[in-house]
């Protein structure tokens, strides 16, 4: 469905040190540096996938989304989405995609949300019956009934974001690009948005590509993640794969009847110890979990054990470190 091959894009950025002297100097001579926003990015995405696109700020996530949605023209490389090259066949192509830029607004600021929706209906030439059905579905699932007649400027961020997402889906696109859809949202709105993305993916088979900094979004939604850093693609695979590759550590918290001797388990490091409680970090590549538990129960009389996997946030931080991003 989506095939991206060797996409590169660079930007020219004017540079000058601060201060009046340099400002005057730059009137006559400007210095530019080239920033390689994307370098030779390739991947392909099958219909119905939800793909999380992650990376630190400035890694090139948004640029990739903009190239894929036909807004930016890359310097090199090819991209074929549903048979179209986005930047060449822009007008026929965009009929098939929906885009949400979490930091921008597509709704008309001074008029009720409904007016913007109707304008989009006419721009996308949506047949009346299809429009009615989609709109009902969107109003129900995103809970828009009470806010649809309010001017956009009077909506809260969470309300607005739900409307933005609805606006991007009115024309029933088969691909949805979400550029930080949960930015600045509270927990309730985030969950509502996630739930909705999951629903349209399941029920309508919409392919979703989302960028985010919230790893909970990724864990809740994405089957697959693409990690990009400094313009290059660093990881392409499942969340589980990421865990098994980078997140091999587990934390065991054990409570037991008083025991004077500190625990000793090969392959595990003791993070903290008191006579009745210990926290261990276990590297599952060195010792099997079952083995660690057996060792533990042989040394103390266990009362309670909890095992925590490493939070995905930490794994990502570890990856960023490893790749020096």
């Amino acid at each position, binding site marked *: 469905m989506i095939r991206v091959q060797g996409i590169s894009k660079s930007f020219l950025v004017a540079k000058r040190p601060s201060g009046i002297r340099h400002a005057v100097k730059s009137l006559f001579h400007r210095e530019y540096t080239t920033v390689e926003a994307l370098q030779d990015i390739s991947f392909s995405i099958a219909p119905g996938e939800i793909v999380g696109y992650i990376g630190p700020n400035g890694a090139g996530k948004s640029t990739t989304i903009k190239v894929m949605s036909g*807004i930016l023209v890359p310097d090199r490389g090819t991209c074929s989405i549903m048979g179209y090259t986005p930047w060449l066949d822009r007008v026929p192509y965009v009929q098939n995609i929906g885009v949400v830029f979490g*930091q921008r607004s*597509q709704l008309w600021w001074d008029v009720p949300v409904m007016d913007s929706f109707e304008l989009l209906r*006419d721009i996308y030439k949506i047949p009346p019956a299809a429009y009615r059905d989609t709109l009902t579905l969107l109003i129900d699932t995103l809970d828009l009934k009470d806010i649809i007649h309010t001017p956009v400027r009077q909506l809260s961020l969470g309300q607005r974001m739900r409307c933005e997402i609805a606006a991007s889906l009115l024309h029933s696109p088969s691909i949805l690009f979400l550029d930080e859809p949960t930015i600045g949202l509270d927990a309730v709105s985030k969950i509502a948005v996630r739930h909705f993305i999951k629903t349209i993916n399941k029920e309508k088979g919409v392919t979703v590509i989302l960028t985010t900094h919230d790893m909970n979004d990724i864990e809740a939604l994405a089957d697959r993640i693409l990690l990009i850093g400094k313009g290059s693609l660093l990881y392409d695979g499942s969340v589980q794969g990421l865990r098994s590759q980078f997140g091999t550590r587990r934390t065991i918290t054990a409570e037991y009847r008083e025991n004077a001797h500190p625990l000793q388990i090969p392959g595990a490091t003791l993070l903290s110890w008191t006579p009745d409680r210990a926290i261990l970090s276990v590297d599952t590549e060195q010792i099997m979990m079952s083995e660690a538990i057996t060792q533990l129960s042989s040394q103390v009389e266990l009362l309670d054990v909890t095992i925590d996997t490493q939070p995905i946030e930490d794994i990502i931080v570890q990856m960023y470190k490893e790749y020096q991003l």
Partner: protein
Amino acid sequence: MMKPYISVFKLRISNGLQYRAAALAGIGTQFFFGFMFIMIFEAFYAHTSGTPPMTLAEVITYTWLKQAFLAFIVLWFRDDELFQLITSGNIAYELCRPSGIYGLWYVKLLAQRLASAMLRCFPILILVIFLPEPYGLQLPTDFTSFLLFLATLFVGLLMIVSLSMLIYISVFITMSPAGSLLLFSVFGDFFAGLVIPVPLMPNWMQQIVYVLPFHWTADFPFRVFTGNLSKTEALTGLCIQSIWLVGLIAVGKFAMDRALRRIVVQGG
């Protein structure tokens, strides 16, 4: 085919009609400047030696038309939203729509001018018809001239929108609307005859003015109204206006396509 454009047009008009207080203030300002212009011309005409190329009555009518249809003819009438779209990067959304940007923006600008003019022109026109001699507006001698005036004013309006599209396109490159706006509006408005009617300019300057497109947007329709130009002149002028219009739109579309190809979406 036309539906998206019509909806943008309608939404923009209904949006524009909200600003009643601004319209009221605008009407006041336009009356003030109208009287000021007329008094200056009156003073000049009182001391003129030869026969001027326009009668005082024609100049007064010309001035009132200019004040009434200001939203149709000035280049500084602008849509800050479009400028913001470009400089803040929100243009990203416009580019995700299955329609040409040029067309959508064109109707947006057109609707905005129409909405503004609808609120202002009628009160001004009605009042100035009843002003005492010599300050009043003189109606055209026959109905055909009036129809010709409407036609030329309308094509002139389309021309001014395509001219102002060039200002918006230039912002893609300069990233600041101030320069283009100032340049276009100072020169454009002067060459359109908004400061002094073109027939009152010295000959050498008239020759420059007639080569440029600006006078077709204001000076020409107003002189059709006052009868300063004959009906045949009006008809040939209408043809030239249309040729200019087609040319300006073609240039604008070409420039827009070029600008979009090398666009940078600002702000991440």
